[in-house]
């Protein structure tokens, strides 16, 4: 391991100087009178500009409109809509969810309206927003991924696709792709060929080495990566001695997964050159900042939307406040993790 202190700003060239808006000297506790530092929190991923790096995660925000009376959707950087399949899907029988310590399990079964109805019923509203619309896409065969993308290509105003190769709830397709590097390459390459919009690939964390999958997706043409999806988990009712979920297992999400998801974002950001979007247990500004510092260009708020609908918008402001306080722009925070020089290599545990 290099002895150099690691202060990589992911994706930016070192020759790029501080933006023109930063007129005042670095933070030494004495700001010049009358000069205001306005932090830039715009972010750009695969050629797509986002007004800020706080997005909402697929499956946690419906198709956006459901939250419109509670928060100002125009404050968000992007909305990633519920996963879309070529045809509508019914989803699993109940029970579909179960609360765990600082988290929850879900086995919804990917219930969605299907590509056609998404284009006609949901996309028109999403197009009217300043928040960009990212469409999460899944299917059970490579041909169907391609077919779904071709159907969605007819839609206008989609900022990007997020390829879901990692859903743990279905018995075929999703789980298999996300845990086999060759299948990952196959589906990403086939999708990239037909995708009209930039292709982000959402990785599964249910793998031994996330960097293998990050590299596989990158080599197959992914424009960016989102990580992570949910972890496979389960719960049991000891009185009836039955699983708490109809599907037996489900996806674990929420604050309890953050340390592991964060570690994976950190590892993936070092393994590939394409941008990383981080998610997993983000419910506070502090959580989001950890992901930026680890190398994420944007973050997604997921489960927190369920119990605190104002979370995403609060994080945008929280990010601005942090940048203001530190007199840093977002671009200076991304990937800015500093690891001090050590005599011995860092192991993977303890």
């Amino acid at each position, binding site marked *: 391991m290099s002895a150099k202190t690691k202060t990589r700003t992911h994706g930016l060239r070192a020759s790029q100087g501080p933006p023109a808006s930063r007129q005042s000297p670095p933070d030494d506790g004495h700001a010049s009178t009358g000069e205001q530092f306005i932090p830039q929190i715009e972010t750009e991923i695969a050629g797509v500009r986002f007004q800020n790096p706080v997005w909402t995660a697929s499956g*946690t925000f419906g198709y956006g409109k459901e939250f419109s009376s509670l928060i100002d959707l125009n404050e968000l950087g992007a909305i990633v809509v519920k996963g879309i399949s070529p045809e509508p899907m019914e989803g699993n029988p109940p029970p579909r969810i179960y609360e765990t310590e600082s*988290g929850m399990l879900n086995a919804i079964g990917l219930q969605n309206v299907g590509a056609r109805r998404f284009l006609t019923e949901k996309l028109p509203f999403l197009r009217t927003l300043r928040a960009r619309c990212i469409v999460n896409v899944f299917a059970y065969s490579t041909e169907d991924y391609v077919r779904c993308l071709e159907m969605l290509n007819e839609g206008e105003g989609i900022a990007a696709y997020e390829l879901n190769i990692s859903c743990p709830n279905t018995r075929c397709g999703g789980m298999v792709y996300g845990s086999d590097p060759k299948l990952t390459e196959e589906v990403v390459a086939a999708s990239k060929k037909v995708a009209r919009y930039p292709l982000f690939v959402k990785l599964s964390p249910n793998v031994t080495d996330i960097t293998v999958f990050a590299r596989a997706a990158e080599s197959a043409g992914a424009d960016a990566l989102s990580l992570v999806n949910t972890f496979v988990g389960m719960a049991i009712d000891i009185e009836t001695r039955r699983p708490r979920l109809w599907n037996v297992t489900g996806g674990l999400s929420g604050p309890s997964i953050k340390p592991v998801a964060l570690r994976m974002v950190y590892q993936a950001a070092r393994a590939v050159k394409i941008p990383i979007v981080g998610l997993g247990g983000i419910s506070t500004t502090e959580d989001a900042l950890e992901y930026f510092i680890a190398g994420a260009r944007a973050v997604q708020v997921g489960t927190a939307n369920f119990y605190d609908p104002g979370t995403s918008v609060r994080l945008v402001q929280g990010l601005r406040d942090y940048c203001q306080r530190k007199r840093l722009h977002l671009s200076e925070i991304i990937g800015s993790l500093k690891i001090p020089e050590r005599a011995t290599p860092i192991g993977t545990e303890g």
Partner: protein
Amino acid sequence: MYDEIVIVTGNRPLSGSHLLLSVESPRQAQATRPGQFAMLRILGRSDVLLRRPMSIYDLKAKNSEGENDRKPGSPRILQFLYKVVGHGTRLMSELKPGDQVGLLGPLGHGFFEEEYLPRAHQANEILHVAGGIGIAALLLPAKRLAEAGFHQRLFFGGRSKADLVGVEDFRPLVRGILMATENGSAGYRGFVTRPLEEYLARHTNKKYLLMVCGPWAMLRASVELARKYGHPCLVSMENRMGCGLGVCLGCCIRVQGTGHEAYQRVCTEGPVFWSEKVIWEDEAIAKT
């Protein structure tokens, strides 16, 4: 629908692990329609992540101190009748006046009058059938119907007398109350569906509208009786909920329909459904 931090004005213990929680939110109280619910959040804890869905039992104009509202008719307080059944409800039982809680509501498609009023007008009597804490969903509808002059009757079953909370709130609204307890400590000994059937069988010349809320088995049995005797029946369902807003799809139940229409959300299309809409053979729900 509003998302607010509100103040607890009361949390009164009743019999059998039941409590009546009162919180102040004029906005949500005034927007509430019968049969709706709210999602309650215990603040500042990581051991309970998700909100808890609570039927809005009653609305009050004054707070517990008896302070008069300038507009006596406009409600400011929402009341939730609940039973301690798990960790979340246990934490709720520890709330004291002055504490803050998160309140997201009112939510759900309740007993919306436009949809059941025609049937109610055709009925000689409206029969409320409550099982245990299911009573919490029926008081506001009963009050609204009483104001409109409908005849009503309550069939209320529970494990024991201690479970039959809320009876006194119904008394002024109904022509009769029939109680049933499994252990015989009050009223008929056994399930409430037995005296309900006797009543329906005794009055086959009458038309009724049933409004039912309670445990799955009781709902199922009541729906079967309604079908057998040819009466329309509304059921208020419950399920574990993730968001209460309609986005997580965690609370779906199987209904008549195929493809994307095969499941409907208890929090959004429900909690109230016409009984024929629900597919009752779905045993999976019986376990929740």
